[in-house]
């Protein structure tokens, strides 16, 4: 496996694991409170829609000329990666609330109870909430699978990494039988942001016609460089006098 393929697999695995943790919380809430069968049907339907999106757009993207593909995908990865990185840095700095799975679970179960008692048959509420939760959380992963996979003509590897991440999270959820509140979500989001941004820099510049000194080995400098710059920005933004901290938020 090449260095780029390892980067692809790690990035997709982490991104997918983070989104799967969030989706698991929603599915657990409606499953425990109302109907497991309907919630799991919603999960299956959403997974199918995501698989169709990847299967339909994957071959279309890989058919594009490689330079066009890399400048477009590099640009998209950069815009997307900088969003993840920005939010993760703001959370580390205490300027944005951390995602709290226990709080999210409590909020979802309250809403599920308020929606009335589930009938004996198919429960539309559980289906819809599970479907929407998995679809919305999964779209970002589908985007990353498609862009990373298409750039390396290896959508299959990206899809496998995503599937392994989902399996790991679901297994952990079954074992713990509770929301996975201890998963270091922000650290994982920070790592995904660093990877997306680094590959975005590399492919974007290459697609625009630049040649990297050292070829693919340049990634070994770009990835740590982006990570160090981002860590530096966490420290800088924490010290910034204008920074407005979220009340009660761990910095």
């Amino acid at each position, binding site marked *: 496996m090449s260095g780029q393929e390892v980067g692809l697999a790690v990035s997709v695995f982490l991104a997918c694991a983070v989104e799967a943790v969030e989706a698991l919380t929603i599915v657990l809430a409606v499953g425990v409170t109302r109907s497991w069968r309907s919630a799991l049907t919603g999960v299956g339907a959403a997974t199918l829609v995501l698989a169709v999106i990847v299967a339909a757009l994957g071959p279309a993207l890989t058919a594009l000329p490689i330079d066009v593909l890399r400048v477009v995908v590099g640009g998209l990865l950069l815009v997307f990666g900088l969003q993840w990185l920005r939010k993760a*840095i703001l959370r580390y700095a205490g300027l944005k609330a951390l995602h709290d799975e226990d709080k999210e679970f409590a909020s979802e179960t309250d809403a599920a109870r308020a929606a009335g008692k589930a009938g004996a048959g198919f429960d539309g509420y559980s289906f819809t909430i599970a479907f929407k939760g998995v679809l919305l959380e999964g779209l970002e992963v589908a985007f990353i699978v498609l862009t990373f996979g298409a750039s390396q003509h290896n959508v299959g590897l990206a899809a496998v990494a995503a599937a392994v991440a989902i399996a790991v999270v679901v297994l952990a959820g079954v074992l713990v039988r509770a929301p996975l509140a201890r998963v270091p979500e922000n650290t994982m989001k920070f790592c995904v942001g660093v990877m997306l941004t680094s590959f975005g820099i590399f492919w974007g510049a290459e697609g625009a016609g630049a040649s*990297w000194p050292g070829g693919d080995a340049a990634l070994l400098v770009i990835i740590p460089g982006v990570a160090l710059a981002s860590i530096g920005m966490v420290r800088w933004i924490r010290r910034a006098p204008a920074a407005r901290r979220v009340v009660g938020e761990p910095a």
Partner: protein
Amino acid sequence: MSSIVRAARAVWEFVVGDDPWTALGVVVALGATAIIAGAGAPAWWVMPLAVPVLLGLSLRRAAR
């Protein structure tokens, strides 16, 4: 609102998010890379220079 406009807005929100200036900066930086590379000069340095600047400016806007 037509469904096309709604879909376009959803895609915009999804890809660009709440900071369009960063997205614009990425496009400008990629354009500069293409122009410099097209002129035959080394252009690899543009993106590693532009991206931390864009991220820093975005964080500064968010922290205000």
